[in-house]
């Protein structure tokens, strides 16, 4: 048809002629969020209500954007905040600087800080951009706290997923541990089940061949091993 065929093509795109609208009317209808989306952080608690954060400041140290400010303090003997010796006394994240790289989550030794899938927020002043401990710590049901400027309209899919990355591979992101529980329980959720496998299949938790991740780090002559591919 040459030129005229093109007219048919554009005509057929109309809704009355059976075309489909591809636009997603975003705030009204939301697409499902990616499994490992990095949203804003939460500070998790143990199942007994204790905070996981021990105030070690590793997250603050690793943060490339320098957006985390932590001060640790000794737990009060009569009313401890965390199970250990110390706890996070001040914890602030500046979301004007955060790049959601998740390095803090990787650095955290107690899985205290994880990222939720909440990213749809727009504050109107700089003070609101700084989330303090009061906003970051999960509530008594283990859910993040909603700020007035946060859009939670697809709450059901976004809310329970506050630690997806941690549950995908652990520890230290080692793929051999995929599907094996290596994390502690969380308030409101208990010990969470592992995420599905990376290729979408149900992972079969196979025991790693060596007895633990430490053996790999020390590298006691396991030259022929899969993991030791990078050492010289």
């Amino acid at each position, binding site marked *: 048809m040459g*030129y005229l065929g*093109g*007219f048919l*093509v*554009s*005509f057929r*795109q*109309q*809704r009355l002629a059976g*075309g*489909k*609208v*591809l*636009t997603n*009317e975003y705030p009204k209808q939301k697409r499902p969020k990616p499994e490992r989306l990095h949203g804003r952080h939460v500070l998790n608690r143990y199942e007994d209500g204790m905070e996981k954060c021990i105030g070690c400041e590793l997250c603050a140290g690793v943060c490339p954007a320098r957006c985390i400010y932590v001060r640790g303090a000794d737990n009060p003997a009569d009313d401890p905040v965390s199970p250990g010796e110390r706890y996070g006394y001040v914890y602030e994240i500046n979301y004007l600087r955060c790049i959601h790289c998740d390095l803090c989550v990787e650095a955290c030794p107690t899985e205290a800080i994880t990222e939720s899938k909440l990213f749809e927020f727009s504050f109107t002043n700089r003070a609101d951009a700084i989330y303090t401990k009061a906003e970051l710590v999960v509530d008594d049901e283990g859910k993040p706290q909603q700020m007035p400027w946060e859009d939670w309209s697809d709450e059901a899919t976004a809310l329970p997923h506050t630690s997806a990355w941690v549950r995908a591979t652990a520890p230290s992101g080692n793929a051999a541990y995929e599907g094996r529980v290596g994390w502690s329980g969380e308030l409101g959720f208990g010990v969470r089940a592992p995420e599905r496998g990376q290729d979408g299949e149900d992972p079969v938790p196979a025991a790693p061949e060596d007895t633990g991740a430490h053996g790999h780090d020390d590298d006691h002559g396991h030259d022929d091993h899969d993991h030791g591919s990078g050492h010289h």
Partner: protein
Amino acid sequence: MDPLFNDGVDLAVVLIVVFKTVAVFAFLLVCTMLMIWFERKLISDMQNRIGPNRAGPWGIGQTMADGVKLFFKEGLLPDRSDRTIFRLAPYLAMVPAFVTFAIVPIGGDFSRGNNGIISLFGHDTFLQLADPPVGILVALACSSIAVYGVMLAGWSSGSKYPLLGAVRASGQMVSYEAALGLSVVTVVLATGAGLSTHAIVAAQMADKWTLLTSGVVPFGIFFLAATAELERPPFDLLEAEQELVAGFNTEYAGIRFALFYIAGFMNPITMSALITTLFLGGPSGPAPIGPVWMWSLVWWFLKVIALLFVFVWMRATLPRFRYDQLMDLGWKVLIPLSLAWLLIVAALRVGTDEGWNMFVVLGVCTVVLLACGGMLSLASRMGAERRQLGELEG
């Protein structure tokens, strides 16, 4: 001539003319507003998008919102602009769009020898603002004046892109005006009713649309040339965003830009109205029940909307022409074709009047046209060869 002026001009006649003027002005502005919305909505539909949907139901108030925004924006005057002309240009683009519409008959009862006369406040008149004896020539004149709006806007901006856009625009509009005018001549010949738009419409009643009586070719030529004259896609080289930012109106902002914008969307409406008048029988159409003049308005409006749909459809479908392709289409295809068709229509008309044998007339026409076409293609081929040689040597 409009029967309104038959009994001299008194106050009532003046008031009726003023009323008609205001009515046409308001009608055209409202139509433009709706046209902008219609175009945006339709083209987004054809591109699998939603289009404006925030202001009012189906986003119908979007143009209003945009207009209000533009009216409150700062009207910038570039430092190097020619200030007087810079201020004048938008009106030069706007006024012809209005004036052209004045000669379009938008309705009227043409049945049983009524000649499209309606009664307005006790005076007989036509359903069109003006019916000058030169008729359709006003439209051609206005489209020539519209070139000045674009050209002066580009020139007075004192900036490169607008100037390039203006140069492109003037070349394009002048080229296509020839084809436009020639197909109008064909229409005038085919109807044989003179230049008056009212007479042209009256001659097309009883389903004798010029579209058919002149053969379909002049309609096609006029439509293509009109699209080029309107600077609409695929002929929108003068504001090719990828090359010229926004072409002639790059330096315009605020209300002056709004005027160009309105003119740009009003022109398709007036042009569709003209095509309806010239080729589609204007307001002609069946009137099953009720007054005929009302039906004529409905038919006229439907035809215009159908043409506007095609304009938008073309925009959604066709990619922009290259400038040499544009010139080739204008000078090597449309103008020779319209000349040839004019020759055929004229020969047939003279043949009918003189009682000549039609087969002989058509045969002679064919021979002449074949000879002309052969010479034309030979000329263009030689020109192309010479250009190639020049490139090789240069």
